[in-house]
């Protein structure tokens, strides 16, 4: 898998440079203000930048180990995401077997199928087989209270946290003529474009945000942030065409598609959080919230990105 060290190194060096720049800006902002006083927005910005360093280092480490490293990394990402999702979800004692099966059988099996590249199974395993078996386990427990709601929540958790996220490492299983051995760069493209869209939406929104798009769901999302963020992240996607099998305009269109999906995914996940009365899914990533807070956009973008490539490029 690691036959493209120059491109990968170039990308990681650029990200490193961007993070150094961000760290310097964060440091200067903190110094310009009152360094000893806590300042909500600036401290949060610096916490986010520190967390980015950690996240980039973890992803970089996984890349060193190639396909195995990436699959293990996303297996753990799914695990932490599923744990956050289920912790905030109403289930009952009767769901114990379904939950245990989700965590200890469905999740590892899904990643096993990705590892062996069995597309025919990993693309239907959770939507079909988990969908049928898990409510059977809950029904066998005999507890009918709010049954449909409980079954739906377990299935939703698996779809979001395991099925969708597993489509990121599944990009490694695609066989693209003329692009052999470079599939890791597809993951770089997806994660970089969608995450920079998140960051740029945040920055554009902070600087120019006036009009709330969905004040009832997510008060921080503004029209200005959306347009500015998606447009600039789409430009980044177009500029990255050289690491992909796409032409520049294809690259821009695909970046636009995954940025829009990412934005809407964030909206859906915010709606769930709002319904549960919480601001964040967890607190494992300092300044960002939980794993799902950082990944909500990737969750919705990954399957679409995967199928666009699978349909037109393989």
């Amino acid at each position, binding site marked *: 898998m690691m036959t493209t060290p120059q491109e990968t190194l170039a990308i990681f060096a650029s990200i490193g440079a961007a993070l150094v720049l961000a760290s310097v800006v964060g440091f200067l902002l903190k110094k310009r203000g009152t360094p000893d006083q806590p300042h909500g927005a600036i401290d949060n910005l610096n916490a986010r930048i520190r967390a980015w360093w950690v996240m980039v280092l973890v992803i970089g480490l996984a890349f060193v180990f190639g396909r195995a490293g990436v699959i293990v990394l996303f297996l753990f990402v799914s695990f932490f995401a599923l*744990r*956050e999702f289920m912790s905030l979800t109403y289930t009952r004692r009767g769901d114990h077997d379904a939950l245990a099966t989700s965590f200890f059988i469905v999740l590892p099996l899904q990643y096993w199928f990705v590892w062996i590249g069995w597309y025919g199974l990993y693309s239907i395993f959770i939507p079909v087989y988990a969908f049928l078996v898990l409510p059977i386990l809950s029904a066998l427990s005999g507890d009918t209270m709010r049954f449909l709601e409980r079954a739906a929540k377990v299935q939703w958790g698996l779809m979001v946290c395991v099925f969708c996220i597993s489509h990121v490492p599944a990009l490694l299983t695609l066989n693209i003529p003329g692009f052999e051995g470079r599939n890791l760069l597809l993951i770089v493209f997806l994660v970089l474009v969608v995450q920079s869209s998140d960051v740029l939406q945040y920055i554009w929104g902070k600087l120019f945000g006036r009009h709330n798009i969905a004040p009832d769901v997510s008060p921080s999302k503004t029209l200005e942030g959306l347009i500015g963020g998606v447009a600039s992240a789409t430009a980044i996607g177009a500029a990255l065409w050289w690491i992909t099998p796409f032409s520049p305009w294809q690259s821009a269109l695909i970046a636009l598609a995954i940025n829009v999906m990412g934005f809407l995914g964030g909206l859906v996940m915010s709606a769930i959080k709002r319904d549960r009365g919480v601001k964040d899914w967890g607190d494992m990533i300092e300044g960002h919230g939980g794993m799902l807070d950082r990944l909500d956009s990737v969750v919705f973008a990954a399957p679409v990105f995967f199928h666009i490539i699978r349909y037109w490029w393989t």
Partner: protein
Amino acid sequence: MMIDALGSRVLCGFVKALTGARVRWLGCPPAATQRVYYANHTSHGDFALLWACLPPDLRSRTRPVAGADYWGEPGIKSYIANHLIRAVLIERGGGTRTENPIRPMIEAVESGDSLIVFPEGTRNMTDEPLLPFKSGIYHLARSCPQVDFVPVWIENSRRVMPKGRFVPIPLLCTLSVGAPLRIEPDEDKATFVERSRNALLSLMPALH
């Protein structure tokens, strides 16, 4: 001793990794003053969870109170309770018990230790958030009026390992620590029991 200390650290690490436990010190800081932490009880693992979540310097001086009928059974359970967690084991079960169950707790407090107690007296298996308290918390408070009673709401541990299941689910548990309270000189049993119970209930997150 070395092995016990090591086992104790391993157990702590395991409990924290499994439950992803986080503690919100809402009503007081994690100070090393003598306290009686009292919590809701839904799982056999509760006392290990609360104990593991205390900072190490507090943990070494804090002893959970647990039922001798379950944790006193010879074997791994008794080893964990006696050697790793240094639990205060008490006899439960009303008429059959021979010893005043409050006595060992008072002795532990007199020797300077903090306690972890579960005033419901048994695990809550119902859909109610919190069972009525037994009178034990009042008798303990009456005997140790100078000790702070600190409510701790444990969220989710019931779902990690419900009764009759052996595979724990790695859900995140949250512990919310409230403000300390002490018994008033002239406070009667019903008032103190109700007041301490309401203090604990007020920490319950509105997620249900």
